């Protein structure tokens, strides 16, 4: 479904990786490993379509993502380092607006259910600037859960989450995979996920195993 063919990435004058190829099918998980600065985020941005690779191409269902354009965006959710939530909006507004802008309206009761699952029901009407780092991360996860996309690109998804939230997000990612989703996760921690097939790509050595 997702194929990366011979990708290479150059940041400034440094080549981060070269000749990287892999593919992922529904139900599969890819864990990206590598030391800081090895290009995990750059790879995720290339896969999301935000950045272009120096060489190589990314294909989705056999077509390059450049040619698919917005159609590809509809299948991808990218959870970056930054949570992508607005400080001035409340948790529930953030969630509903993010979905509305993406083209599928989320009704208030549905949004409340998702926020409750993530333990944010008491904070749903607070402006996000009053939330802690972990709570903002949970809100970003809520956006991911409501995004209805197949491919999840997660960059250090567990950052600033507590134990409960880590368990919760592992469960959500597991559910996503069982439903035929694909997840590509850059992480330093073990996720203990049950997936049909787990691939580990270590960017430090530039080899996929």
């Amino acid at each position, binding site marked *: 479904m997702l194929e990366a063919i011979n990708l290479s990435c150059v940041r400034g004058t440094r080549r981060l990786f070269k000749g990287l190829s892999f593919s992922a099918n529904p139900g599969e998980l890819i864990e990206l490993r590598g030391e800081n600065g090895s290009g995990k985020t750059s790879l995720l*941005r290339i896969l*999301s*379509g*935000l*950045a*272009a690779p120096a060489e190589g191409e990314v294909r989705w269902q056999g077509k390059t993502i450049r040619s698919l354009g*917005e*159609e590809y*965006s*509809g299948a*991808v*959710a*990218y959870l*970056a*380092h*930054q*949570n*992508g*939530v*607005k*400080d*001035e*909006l409340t948790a529930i*507004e953030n969630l509903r*607006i*993010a979905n*509305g*802008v*993406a*083209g599928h*309206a989320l009704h208030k009761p549905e949004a409340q259910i998702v926020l409750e699952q993530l333990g944010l029901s008491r904070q749903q009407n607070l*402006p996000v600037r009053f939330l802690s780092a972990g709570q903002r991360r949970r809100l970003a996860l809520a*956006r991911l859960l409501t995004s209805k996309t197949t491919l999840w690109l997660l960059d250090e998804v567990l950052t600033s989450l507590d134990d409960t939230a880590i368990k919760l997000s592992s469960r959500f990612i597991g559910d996503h995979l069982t439903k035929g989703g694909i997840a590509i996760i850059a992480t330093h921690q073990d996720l203990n996920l049950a997936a049909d097939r787990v691939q580990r790509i270590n960017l430090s050595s530039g080899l996929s195993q």
Partner: protein
Amino acid sequence: MFGWLVWRDLILAWRRRADVLATLFFFVIVVSLFPLGIGPERETLKTIAPGVVWVAALLASMLSLGRMFGNDYQDGTLEQLLLTPQSTYLIVLGKTLAHWLVSELPLVIIAPVLGLQFGLSENSLAIVVVSLLLGTPVLSLVGAIGAALTLGLRAANVLVALLVLPLYIPVLIFGTGAVQASVGGTSPQAWLLLLAATVVLSLVFAPWATSAALKISVE
């Protein structure tokens, strides 16, 4: 989707209304300084009025350009917007519309009050409003290109001014031309038509250029 985007920017502007008011007060103060500095001579004031109002409007709209994409860029919501399954052209158009409603429309509304200080006739005041109504969308549309190009740069505000002010020149000429014609007692129609043509032209090309600039800045 378009509605959600505009609604989002309007709520955000409301929650940060101090920023919006600052731009408006800047416009009011700049325009009001001229009658104070030049003196109460009616004929002189009438001659400079079109230029003063228009230049002040250009400067005031410059001030708000940094906010157009800047905040969204910093908190990562701009990336998320670009990753939605919508054409970037529409996203840019939505954000530009919101910018116009929030930062330009108040200038248009308050302009006739400021025009009174220059002793403009009712007819000329109406032309001030009409010319601003036609011209300010161009300021938002063209300004968006500069705002997108300078995203994340140091001294972005100064750079935006250098990039965008030269592009505002046609609007300035047509806009002041219309008001001057009306003050001088001739028909401003030709100038207004030229302004309308500029709106159409920038409506077609500016969001497209802004989309390309945004993609470069985000990458």
